[in-house]
C-alpha cells in the first residue's frame, strides 16, 4: 500500500466538489481586483512624496492565486473595461506594471498642474483611459487616430507620459517612475541576496517578512516577497511550518 497521498483527477472527486463548488465559484471572479487592492496597500507612497500612483507588478498576483491563466484573463478584462492600465517597465520583457486608471489620472494631472504641458496631457488621458489598452504607440496611430501634432507628442514625452521605444514609437509610462524602478531593482537584488545567504539557501516566508530591511531595501518586505515568489525567482515549497522560499540559481 502506498502511503503517499495520491493525486486524484477531478472526475473521481464528484461528491466532495459538489459541496464546496458553491464557495469557490464566487471567489474567483472578484478576487483579482481585491488582490490588486491589497497589493496596492503594500506600496510605499511616502517614499515618492506622493507623486507616484500605487504600482503593482502583474507577476505579484501569481503569488496570491494558483491559476495563472485565470489571473491573466481577469487582468485583461479589467484593462478592456478601462479600470486598469498596464505598462512595460523596460528592465524585463516579462515584467508589467499595473496601475488603477483613476489613480494614474489623478497623479499625472497633479504632477502636471501649473505646467504648460497640462492641456496636452489632459487631452491624451481623455483618449486613453476609457478606450485604449495598448502599451506602446507609434507615429501613425498618434497622428491619424488620436489627431495629435508632432509638437504635442514632444510635450507628452517631456511630461513623462511617453518614453522613447524606437524611432517613431513610444511606450506608455508612468511619470517619475525612474526612482521607483531603481529602488525596485536594488531591493529585489537585496532580498534575493538575503534568501541566498540564509542557511542552506532557504528561509521561511514568515521569517523573511520579519527581517529588518537594510538600506538597500526601500519598499516593504512583503511587496518584495510577493514579487520574487510571483516571478519564480525562488522556489516556493509548502511545509508544515508555512511556505519555504528556496534560492534558485
Amino acid at each position, binding site marked *: *500500500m502506498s502511503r503517499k497521498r*495520491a493525486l486524484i*483527477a477531478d472526475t473521481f472527486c464528484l461528491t466532495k466538489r459538489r459541496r464546496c463548488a458553491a464557495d469557490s465559484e464566487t471567489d474567483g471572479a472578484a478576487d483579482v481586483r481585491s488582490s490588486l487592492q491589497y497589493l496596492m496597500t503594500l506600496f510605499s507612497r511616502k517614499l515618492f512624496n506622493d507623486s507616484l500612483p500605487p504600482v503593482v507588478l502583474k507577476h505579484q498576483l501569481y503569488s496570491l492565486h494558483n*491559476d495563472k*491563466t485565470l489571473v491573466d484573463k481577469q487582468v485583461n478584462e479589467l484593462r478592456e473595461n478601462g479600470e486598469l492600465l498596464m505598462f512595460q517597465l523596460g528592465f524585463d520583457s516579462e515584467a508589467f506594471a499595473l496601475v488603477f486608471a483613476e489613480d494614474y489620472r489623478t497623479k499625472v494631472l497633479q504632477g502636471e498642474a501649473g505646467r504648460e504641458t497640462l492641456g496636452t496631457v489632459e487631452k491624451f488621458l481623455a483618449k486613453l483611459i476609457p478606450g485604449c489598452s495598448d502599451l*506602446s504607440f*507609434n507615429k501613425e496611430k498618434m497622428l491619424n487616430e488620436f489627431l495629435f501634432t508632432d509638437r504635442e507628442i514632444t510635450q507628452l514625452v517631456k511630461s513623462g507620459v511617453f518614453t522613447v*521605444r524606437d524611432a517613431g514609437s513610444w511606450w506608455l509610462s508612468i511619470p517619475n517612475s525612474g526612482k521607483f524602478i531603481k529602488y525596485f531593482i536594488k531591493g529585489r537584488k537585496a532580498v534575493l541576496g538575503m534568501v541566498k545567504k540564509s542557511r542552506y539557501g532557504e528561509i521561511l516566508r514568515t521569517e523573511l517578512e520579519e527581517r529588518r530591511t537594510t538600506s538597500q531595501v526601500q519598499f516593504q518586505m512583503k511587496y518584495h516577497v510577493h514579487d520574487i515568489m510571483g516571478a519564480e525567482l525562488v522556489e516556493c515549497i509548502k511545509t508544515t511550518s508555512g511556505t519555504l522560499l528556496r534560492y534558485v540559481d
Partner: protein
Amino acid sequence: MLSFLYARQSGVDDPVRLRRAESTRRVLSLELNHNRDVDRIHGNGINTLDIEVIDGRYMLSGGSDGVIVIYDLENNSKKPQYTCKAICTVGRSSRHVHKFSVETVQWYPHDTGMFVSSSFDKTMKVWDTETLKPAEEFQFDGNVYCHHMSPVARKHSLVAVGTKDPKVQLCDLKSGSRIHILQGHRGEILSVRWSPRYDHILATASTDSRVRIWDVRRASGSLFTLDQHNGDKSKASSEAVNTAHNGRVNGLCFTADGLHLLTTGTDDRMRLWNSATGENTLVNYGKVVNESRKGLKFTVSRGCSPEFVFVPCGSAVAVYGLHSGELITMLRGHYNNVDCCEFHPDYQELYSGGKDCNILAWVPVLRQPDIEDDETNSKRGGTQAAINPAFEDAWSSDED
C-alpha cells in the same frame, strides 16, 4: 471507479468515458516502480527515444556516443519484475555507426522494418532493422539537430530535416532526392514536426525565435509565423515583434489531435498555440526552466482528459495540465539532466532518458491485491512472486 463501470455497463455513459477517466487516473499516479527497469547500454547521455506506433512494443534510443539501441518493452515473463531488454544495438564496433552524437531517432511510421537516425556527424541514415545496416545515407553541410517523418502520410514519404542551415530540407525516402527546400528562417533549425492531423502541414522552430508553419504543397513561403502577442504590436519591443518566444525556440510538440501546438523556448516559457490559426491561447505555465542549447524533446499524453504535458526540466520531468497550465507534479529520479521523454499511450507509461545514461520507466501505481493468509504462504514456497529478489529479506532472523 465502480460507478463508472456500472454506468458503462448500463449504457448511461459512453464507453470512451470510462477509458479516459481510468487513463487520467493512471497518468496522475505515475511513479518509479522497482519492478520495472530498462537495460543500461549507453555509455553516455541519451538524447532521444521513440516508441513505435504499431504495437507499442519496441523502443529506439539514440545516445551521445552515437550508439542506437532497440529495446523490447513487453513483459512476456510471468513475473512482475521485468527489465526491458535491449534486443539489438548499433554499437561503436559497427562499421556504420554514427561518428558523433545521435540527436534524433524515429521509427518508420508504418512498420518496424526501418528507422531513421540523424546525428551531429552531419548525416542522416535510414537503417534496415533486420540487418542493422543503413539502406540510405543523406549528407548535410551542418550538424543535423532534428528530423521528423509524418506519422499520417500515405501519399508521400518526406523526412523534414533541421540543420545548422536556416533552410529546412525535405528528403524523399522513395526517390532519395532532397531538392525540396523551405526558406524563411534566419537561424539554425532546432526542431521540426509534422502535424498528426494533416500530412502536408509542417512546423519548424529556430534560433531566430520564430516558429513557422508550412504547407509543403505550396511553392511560396510559410503559411504563417506564430506571434506570441497575437498581432498586438504594442506589447513587444521592436525587435521582438512577430516572434514566438523571447529566446531560441527549441521544442515543438503537437497534441494528439493536431489541433494545438506546444512550443518551448530558452526564455523559460512554454506556449500553447491553436495550430489552425496560429493564435496564442495565452495559457500561462509559469517558468519552465529550459537551458538546452539543442532541441528539447517533450511529449503530450494521449487518451486522457485533461491532457498532460511532460517536459524535461533540469533533472526532473515536469507534468503540466495542458489547458489549465498548472504544474501537477515533478517526476524526480534522474541523477543528471533529462533530455527526452516519450509517452506510451496504451499503458500510460512514461519513459525518460537523460545525461546520467539511464532510461527510467514511470509506471502507474497499481492497486495492490490484499494478501490474506500471510502465515500459510511461506516465502520459501516461492508463491510470493511479487518481491523483487533485490528486496528480499535475506538477513533478518526468524528466531527474534
